[in-house]
């Protein structure tokens, strides 16, 4: 039983990180229908920026905030400069472009900071919450950060006019233009948010897996799985999907297939969901009357 609870908590913790990655993917997907293969590498790069800032003497939270802001600006920049000219390009060109970004960030990180792994600090104390070895402060902290971030995003999208404008632009771009919404900037904003959310995910996971240019590759696959399970067009669903994937991955890994096949499990989930229930389990079905 104790082992089960430990696995469950571990699953929720990694689930929180997958949820962040999934959320970033959804941000871009809802506004552009694109799947950003570079999401993981962007997150990794932002984490390196935080590491570099801590290295020159920034406090952890200072570096955290700066990295998130830099990631936001970077995401905005990528959309405006690199992707905007390809707005009407065929899918293949966009996929190639995302793969190019992935390669580029990976190589750039290796070039600037080398491919050797680095420890990354955690802001959470090495404390056991209940004193029985079940939940550590780090695990609680990771889940809390994810939940807080989701809360902020929910408020933003539901209760601010800018959030409303972003949703409108994603749903019906030409109609949004007729309401004065600068759609192209809304897409850029989506990219900025995605990058910022990714940065948070990267900084949460780096203390556990250590910092290296390839640290997000596997995590991105789980993020995909989470986003798809929850419905890639639905932020709340994606977060729930991330948690589900995290818990399943840990339980299936420790009880059924062993840790070595975990990535294949993620692959099976991705393909399975795409084939059986492309809208995901929480996929929003819009009711239409004609």
């Amino acid at each position, binding site marked *: 039983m104790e082992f089960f609870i430990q696995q469950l908590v571990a699953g929720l913790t990694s689930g929180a990180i997958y949820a962040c990655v999934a959320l970033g993917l959804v941000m871009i997907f809802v506004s552009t229908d694109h799947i950003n293969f570079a999401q993981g590498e962007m997150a990794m790069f932002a984490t390196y920026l935080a590491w570099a800032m801590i290295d020159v003497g920034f406090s952890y939270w200072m570096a955290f905030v700066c990295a998130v802001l830099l990631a936001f600006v970077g995401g905005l920049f990528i959309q405006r400069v690199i992707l905007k000219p390809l707005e009407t390009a065929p899918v293949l060109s966009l996929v190639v472009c995302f793969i190019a970004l992935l390669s580029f960030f990976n190589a750039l990180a290796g070039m600037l900071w080398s491919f050797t792994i680095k420890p990354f600090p955690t802001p959470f104390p090495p404390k056991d919450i209940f004193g029985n070895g079940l939940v550590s402060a780090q695990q609680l902290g990771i889940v809390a950060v994810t939940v807080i971030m989701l809360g902020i995003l929910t408020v933003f999208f539901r209760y601010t006019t800018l959030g409303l404008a972003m*949703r409108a632009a994603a749903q019906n771009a030409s109609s*949004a233009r007729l*309401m*004065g919404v600068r759609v192209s900037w809304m897409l850029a904003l989506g990219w900025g948010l995605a990058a910022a959310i990714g940065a948070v995910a990267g900084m949460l996971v780096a203390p556990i897996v250590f910092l290296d240019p390839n640290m997000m590759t596997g995590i991105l696959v789980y993020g995909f799985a989470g986003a798809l399970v929850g419905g890639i067009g639905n932020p709340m669903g994606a977060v729930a999907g991330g948690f589900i994937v995290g818990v399943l991955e840990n339980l299936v890994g420790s009880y059924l297939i062993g840790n070595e096949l975990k990535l294949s499990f993620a692959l099976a989930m991705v393909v399975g969901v795409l084939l059986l229930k492309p809208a995901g389990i929480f996929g929003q079905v819009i009711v239409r009357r004609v």
Partner: protein
Amino acid sequence: MAAILDVKGLSAWYGPIRALYDLDLTIEQGGVTALLGANGAGKTTTLRAICNMTRRAGTTTFDGKDISKFTTEDIVRLGIGQVPEGRGTFTGLSVDENLRLAFHIRKDRAEAMRDMDLVFELFPRLKERIKQQAGTLSGGEQQMLAVGRALMLAPRLMLLDEPSFGLAPLIVQEIFRILKRINVEKKVSMLIVEQNAALALELADHVYLLETGRVVTQGPSELVKNDETLRKAYLGY
């Protein structure tokens, strides 16, 4: 009366296909102009071209300002509200959110709140459905929502694309009655595209007849109403 919208030599293309040929069009301040013609005459294209939603050439002057090179968003922000073909409903947003979307370009929040009250006064049905997902509204309600959304932009000119399309006669009458009210009370000028010529002629004071992307004739609506040959040839009644 001064012109609120002056269009000179407007041409437009869909991909390689040319849909408009050197169209000239003037809308008087406070007036209602109807754009009539058969399917494919270029009526919708004209509205889209005025808002720069398609490849176009020619000059558009709105309230003395050359807006030919403006983006759709900026044209809208200047005060041209378009009720698009197919109603452009944000199906996943609530009725309330569909209307509040205009808030992000309105600086006068108090004024905007009053406009929202006005929309609900004009269309009480929308108020009943305020929290409902807009995709679940009936066609007539979605048309009302589209007019309401355009009204929320505090426009000085409204471009309406077939507000009667696919609706029951009673609802059509209701909508046209309200459009008249908007025109009179809010002093909003209008350019209205219609298949239902008789209906449009009731509302409009000026008419343009379009055929295959060109203006065939134009004049006060009384003139067209009383010219039987014109009516028979182009309007089918």
